[in-house]
């Protein structure tokens, strides 16, 4: 189709050329008559022999031929297609003829179509070749550029992973290109600079708070201890002083827990994360708490994966995570409750759960229990500041995991799912 439309265009161009030549010869005819026309045509023909280029026939009113290199054609005005064989040339050649009047005479002009056909074919094949080359070059260039950007984006990703692991010292390299990735890198470096200075400031503040709050707390503690030593042993005063000491300890515990949660959330310890197996941690906690639950007339069962459950984390934080969940179940459940520790790996993501068949938590409170200092009305009377689950969530999140509370029908099921190990490996 493309070829046909190109050919039509070429024929109409040929026709225009033929008409243009005819009009020029008309001028010549007006000035120099038939002889002049014949002379010009002969010269044209000499420069462009018929086989390759142009031809003509000049005939009188009665068909007598004055001149030309072809004969017996085109008395009627108009355009014709003529095969070379009719002219005594090869069959492969095609000609375009144009006949019109010059006064009473007839002038036929011819042009070889094949030259243009060849040109067309060449153009088309050139066009396709060029198109192909351009496409290949564009593709190669695209692949090269994409690879280069991809490598830089990959660098960005591994850099972010590194930063995510708590290495706030690292900075992205800035190239000379000044492109989008450079802008992004520059912005990220600035953000990191700010983050790092804020974390340093925060650490300083918490150290100062620790010092300024704990020094008087420590003195209070020492004074109470000295007072107990001075008092009559086992007197009511000693009991009151011991109560005061417990209250001071409670203030300290709450403060410590809040500080600890903030520090974990801020990513403290992340730089010490290592490949850690969850299975022995769960096994250990089970062994420690089996007897504690037994003492409370509760039962702990274990249904954990015998395989290693590797994740990138901190063993002591993970231990505290599991302990907090088990202790929550033990402390908030009545005697005869059964607590089950389960674990496994789904889609390469390690998980564990602690489920009980106790009273559970109402659905509307399940999200709120993670808030700092939030306590269910029913547990107001038990010891603790309501920070256990906030700490749990902070530990889960710093390990890139998620925690979910659901109805165990009856009871509560707490499930913690970590990221796939292969992901956090890198």
């Amino acid at each position, binding site marked *: 189709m493309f070829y046909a439309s190109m050919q039509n265009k070429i024929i109409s161009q040929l026709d225009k050329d033929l008409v243009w030549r005819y009009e020029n010869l008309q001028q010549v005819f007006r000035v120099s008559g038939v002889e002049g026309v014949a002379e010009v045509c002969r010269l044209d023909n000499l420069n462009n022999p018929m086989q390759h280029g142009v031809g003509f026939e000049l005939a009188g009113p009665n068909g007598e031929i004055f001149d030309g290199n072809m004969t017996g054609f085109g008395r009627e005005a108009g355009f014709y297609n003529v095969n070379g064989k009719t002219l005594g040339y090869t069959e492969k050649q095609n000609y375009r003829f144009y006949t019109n009047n010059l006064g009473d005479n007839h002038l036929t002009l011819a042009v070889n179509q094949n030259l243009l056909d060849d040109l067309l074919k060449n153009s088309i094949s050139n066009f396709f070749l060029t198109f192909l080359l351009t496409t290949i070059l564009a593709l190669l260039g695209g692949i090269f550029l994409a690879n280069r950007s991809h490598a830089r984006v990959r660098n960005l990703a591994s850099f972010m992973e590194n930063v995510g692991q708590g290495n706030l010292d690292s900075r992205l390299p800035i190239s000379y290109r000044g492109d989008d990735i450079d802008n992004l890198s520059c912005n990220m470096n600035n953000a990191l600079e700010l983050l790092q200075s804020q974390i340093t400031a925060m650490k300083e503040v918490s150290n100062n708070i620790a010092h300024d709050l704990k020094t008087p707390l420590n003195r209070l503690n020492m004074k109470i201890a000295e007072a107990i030593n001075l008092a009559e042993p086992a007197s009511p005063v000693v009991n009151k002083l011991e109560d005061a000491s417990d209250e001071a300890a409670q203030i300290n515990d709450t403060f410590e827990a809040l500080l600890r949660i903030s520090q974990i959330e801020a990513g403290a*310890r992340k730089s010490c994360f290592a490949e850690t197996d969850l299975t022995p941690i769960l096994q250990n906690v089970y062994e*420690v708490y089996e007897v504690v639950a037994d003492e409370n007339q509760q039962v702990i069962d274990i249904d954990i994966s015998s395989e290693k459950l590797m994740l990138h984390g901190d063993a002591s934080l993970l231990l505290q995570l599991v302990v907090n969940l088990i202790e929550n179940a033990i402390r908030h459940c009545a005697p005869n409750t059964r607590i089950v520790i389960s674990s496994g790996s789904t889609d390469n993501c390690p998980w564990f759960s602690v489920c009980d068949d106790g009273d559970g938590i109402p659905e509307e409170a399940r999200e709120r229990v993670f808030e700092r200092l939030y306590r269910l009305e029913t547990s107001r009377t038990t010891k603790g500041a309501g920070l256990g689950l906030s700490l749990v969530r902070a530990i889960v999140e710093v390990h890139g995991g998620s925690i979910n509370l659901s109805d165990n029908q009856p009871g509560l099921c707490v499930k913690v799912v970590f990221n796939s190990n292969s992901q956090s490996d890198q």
Partner: protein
Amino acid sequence: MLTHSRNKSLNILLIEDDKETAEYTANGLTQAGHVVDVVENGKEGLLHCMESNYDVLIVDRMLPGMDGLSMMKAVRASGIKTPALFLTALSGVDDRVEGLEAGGDDYLTKPFAFSELLARVNALGRRPAESKEQTHLQVGDLTMDLLKRTVKRGDVAIDLQPREFLLLEVLMKNEGRVVSRTMLLEKVWDFHFDPKTSVVETHISRLRAKIDKPFDVPLLNTMRNIGYSLHTPRS
């Protein structure tokens, strides 16, 4: 204040800039039969360590001039192996690890109970004498074979779970000394936080049921609000 006849007198260097804490701590330690030198900053602490031979160092972390962590690193770098305890307000998640990495042997955060400090100092003070590995432990007629992992009272074999064995081992190695609840949590269960349930009490009571209940003479003693001590009855 608590004193135990089986604790030897220790030479202690206390490096603490808060005067009240320093006085309270030094008094307590002196009453417990120890000899205490007090200095207020890290530089002096380092000099004292180099000049005298102490049994135990008690080091605050936030000190004027050279802080406790840098001082400890300098002490260890100069080849002094004296057991050291950090006594500090810094209780962050990384702080304890930092302290131990700098060369501390134990870490206690303020506010602290004096009995806890004393228990830890006494435990640290016995260390150098026990550099050679023991294979047998004995308290009264209670014996422990650390290689065969067996425990007997007299001729009666006692079957213990691995964790109970470790609990008894810690108590036996500290014969006659008080081992605090938190020391047990750290050494036996590797818990560096305070559990909200009676983990230690429950396990001690299980252990007591195995090593004491069936026998005439009790060895495992509860020191109220402080910890536990394994020893033969004192006359």
